């Protein structure tokens, strides 16, 4: 597997976007593209062509899993792996996402100092 470089990150919470950006750009060195909603991300995904999708689960309008479903319908980007972030630590959601092929499910609150390592570890399992 090629080295993980470009990540498309979607979360409706601006502060989470900020913290994640800090975590991934300061501690790690990723090319990060961030969006505040599913539709915005969907519009940009073909242009960004990320290596990985980092998606919040609970978002108004379009949830993370719904966004993922739509991306998978686009031929050019249909096989981009996805990591989900959720505040709901219920096993069913986690299990369900994993069963559907999610690379990893990260629970909030996550540790910004280790988020990058966690993502890389998941990427390396591919």
């Amino acid at each position, binding site marked *: 597997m090629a080295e993980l470089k470009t990540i498309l990150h979607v979360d409706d*919470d601006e*502060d*989470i976007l900020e*913290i994640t950006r*800090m975590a991934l750009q300061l501690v790690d060195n990723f090319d990060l593209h961030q969006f505040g909603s599913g539709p915005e991300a969907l519009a940009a995904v073909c242009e960004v062509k990320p290596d990985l999708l980092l998606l919040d689960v609970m978002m108004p309008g379009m949830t993370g899993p719904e966004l993922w479903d739509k991306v998978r319908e686009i031929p050019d980007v249909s096989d981009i792996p996805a990591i989900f972030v959720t*505040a709901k630590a219920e096993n069913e959601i986690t299990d369900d996402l994993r069963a559907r092929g999610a690379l990893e499910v990260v629970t909030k609150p*996550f540790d*910004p*100092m280790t988020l990058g390592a966690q993502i890389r570890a998941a990427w390396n399992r591919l």
Partner: protein
Amino acid sequence: MPKLKALSSLTLVLSDVTIAFVLTLFLSALAPDIEALGSLGFIVLFVVMSSFVALVTVVSLSFAKPNAAAKRVIAARDLAIYLREQALNEHTIVSVSHPDGTIAAVNQNFVEKLGYAPEEVIGKMPSMIYWNDDGEFERVRDVVSRGQIWKGHQRLRAKDGHCVTVETTILPRFDDNGHFENSISIRTDLSGAMADGAEEGRNAVVEGLPDEVYIYDPETFRLRYANANGRRRLRRTLDELRGMNLTDFFTVQETTRFKRHIGPVLSGETDIARLEIENAAGPVEVLTHLDRGPNGRRSLVSVVRSIEERRAAEAIKLTSVATVSHELRTPLTSIKGALRLMESGVVGALSPEAARMVTVARRNSDRLLAIVNDILVLEKLSSGEMEMSRRPVDLRELLSEAAEANAAFAAQCEVRFVVEGMREPAWVHGDPDRLMQVLANLMSNAAKFSPAGSGILLRIVDRGETWRVCVEDRGPGIPEEARQTLFDSFTQVSGVDAKSQQGTGLGLAICKEIVARHDGHIAFETEVGKGSTFYFELEKLDRIGSASERPAASVA
């Protein structure tokens, strides 16, 4: 009687005929000389006649057995006295005392009602059986020795310590010279009547309660009473129930579990035992306490109450709390994340003071998150959302693992965990992850509150039907006022110094919930200044058998 009557009538007639015949004979024989004899002759004749008639009367009376009638009267009087004494003796507590006041004799009722053997009271002062002798005995004796009858209510102390309420009459007795000789005390036991009265009054109130109430013998479980709603559940009339035992309505396992459940009430360890049961008709709470009636008779009283509404309210409360907790996790992610980045120095160096403040903020955000997480766990446990995956678990192994896993925390608190060796495995049917959570909680509490350098003993005790897992610390103990609510949510013992930061106040509530989901029970023993032992008990695996085949609770 008619025979006797006929005989006496005949005798009288015969006497009359005899007198008449003899008189005629005498008179006709002596007639010519009567006048010649003069007054002296008349007197002689009169005397002779009188004697003869008297003789005849005596003879006739002797034929008529006049003493039989007298004997009958005397016998009847004796019988009446005997019966009266017998009745008194049967019905009342009788004692006779010597002139000096000591007890001379007691009757069988005295022995039965008060429980003293005759030799235990004879020769003793009666004040020994008075409930509290505040000069009462002397006052009574004063009245009686003056020749008056004393009447009144008294409270006596039975040998086993229970109180017997009596109505007393004390009669003085005098010898022929008019000296006070002794006294007879006649007492009627009122306890039974009072108990019945109290029971009637109580039952009238209890009868109409919306809760089910069962009153039964603590040893045999024989039912003494069930109120209207209790009888409705058991589908029996009061008369039918009186011949039955409460345990007739239980399965063998339920009986075993119930007996274990009320053990602490019977031993006096606790005043009230509380049990929650999931019934087909909805969840119920069973509260059982020991009642000692006015007559000293022990009864167990179980009150069964539907907790469906309370459960629903609790569920709503917990669900809303859980929703709020979920909502808290997102902002917490940003707060914790930001603080963590600042603390690590990647966003620029901080002055030492600023770094300290950031650490305080970060530590408390950790604590806030722990509370939020615990609430979510508790909600999942309560709602039944958290499934227990139970399988055979060796508690001995689990305890060793727990000691190892928590050794780092113990070192941080400057204490150590000491696992008591055990030859046999201790098998139970449980969810090892959840039980580990319980152990970790009890152990971290013990570590937090133990003095530096002390050991915390972890051991498993064979309790017959159950294994008891104990965590014993040498901490400050739990003050009296905190004991009742210790297992409630958000309870923390105040006024006790914990070494590290405080917990969430939910740990023991979670432990209690997990143990309850294992049909076990959790409790503690504590002594202020000495330490506390927290323990939980789980049914031994070999006793459970095919646990899945256990029938649902039929009653209670």
